[in-house]
């Protein structure tokens, strides 16, 4: 099977920066391009089939697995990766809560979880535990058993509601 064909050049907008992609193969996933062509190694590659969620990114404000996005079809769309979550050295509140609750062990799933949880809490600021579990059901963590991750989400929710009152 000959799959090493060349594909024309296209442009991606990632974390508000524009990149020209050229000399690529048509079948490259957004995840591959982020990591191997743009050097954005925050999005992790584990399963390449949408099972693990470690490559989660926002595309036009919709949470998706970047391994299941054809990179060329991300042209003209706003991509936000884990690299955009912190503001310079200033961690986001979800990142802080992960540290405070000890929701990290090996850290491989963490970027995908952070992107997912930011998206989730934006639409559901005071979630039930069952809603949290459903929201993170597409992000596999093999270390923590999820207890502390759920606690981290709850902590962010409490801190945000205190901040707002």
């Amino acid at each position, binding site marked *: 099977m000959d799959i090493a064909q060349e594909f024309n050049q296209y442009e991606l907008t990632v974390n508000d920066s524009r990149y020209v992609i050229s000399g690529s193969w*048509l079948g490259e996933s957004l995840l591959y391009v982020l990591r191997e062509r743009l050097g954005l190694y925050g999005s992790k590659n584990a399963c390449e089939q949408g099972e693990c969620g470690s490559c989660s990114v926002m595309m036009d404000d919709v*949470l998706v697995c970047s391994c*299941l996005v054809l990179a060329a079809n991300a042209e003209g769309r706003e991509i936000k990766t884990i690299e955009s979550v912190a503001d310079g050295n200033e961690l986001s509140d979800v990142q802080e809560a992960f540290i405070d609750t000890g929701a990290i062990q090996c850290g491989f799933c963490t970027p995908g979880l952070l992107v997912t949880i930011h998206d989730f809490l934006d639409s559901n600021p005071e979630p039930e535990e069952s809603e949290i579990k459903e929201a993170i059901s597409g992000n596999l963590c093999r270390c923590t058993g999820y207890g502390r991750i759920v606690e981290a989400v709850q902590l962010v929710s409490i801190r945000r509601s205190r901040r707002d009152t």
Partner: protein
Amino acid sequence: MDFLIASSTEDLCELLAEDSTRQLLAGGTDFMVEVNFRHRDISGVIAIDRIEELKQWRHDGDSVLIGSCVTYREIERGPLSTLIPALAQSARTIGSPQIRNAGTIGGNLATASPAGDMIPVLLALGALVNIRSKSGVRQLQVDELITGVKTNSLHEDEFIESVRVPVLRGPQEFLKVGPRNAMVISVTSLAMVTDIDREYIGIALGSVSASPCRSSEAEHFISENIDWNNMTVPSGVIENFERLVRESANPIDDHRSSSAYRTHTIGVLGRRALLRIFRLEN
């Protein structure tokens, strides 16, 4: 070697008429897995996920017309989930939030997996699939569209434009067995829908045959025994009903389950759905 982004259905008709070997990319949740694992050879791709007409749905009269690029996410919640509850239940069991944000009803049908979770619901409801090409439109029943394991009867220059789904008055259920509650490809699944006005019950099964199939004998048998005024069913018929559901399945052994377990669970799902919809007669 080309990659094209279709902007309208007319545009898509033209692009397929030009070169019908071009492959259609909607949500990508099956397509890209095959690309990533080098199981799909792509020489030309048309992305259809930016065609506005395909992303719309509307409720007209006694049915909803759902564009083929409407996502599981949109069907899972909001107005569609009250209009077609079993379709929403099936959507919610598919993959993860990330997958449901991307995957589409048209993709679920065209991929034609034996485990495609929306297919039993659409079969039980008697949905119709609108198919289009430059040379015209045609309408197929779901079981005319899906011809076998991952095969469909679409001509090379055709695409699925929309799905016409009846809105029925009466309870509906979609149930599925898998190793966990999320991110699961069905071991078995079952849809049961009712239409109180027509005294109709529709039952269809997933993952127990080459294509999702109706359980016609079980439908006929149970519809003769239901008390539609009271929405009750006599306890004496349950066992026979469960047997008829099992007999309409023709499962295989594979890496996901044994045939024996599939046969067992499809009967359990049949009984469970029945008893969620109808009360046992005293």
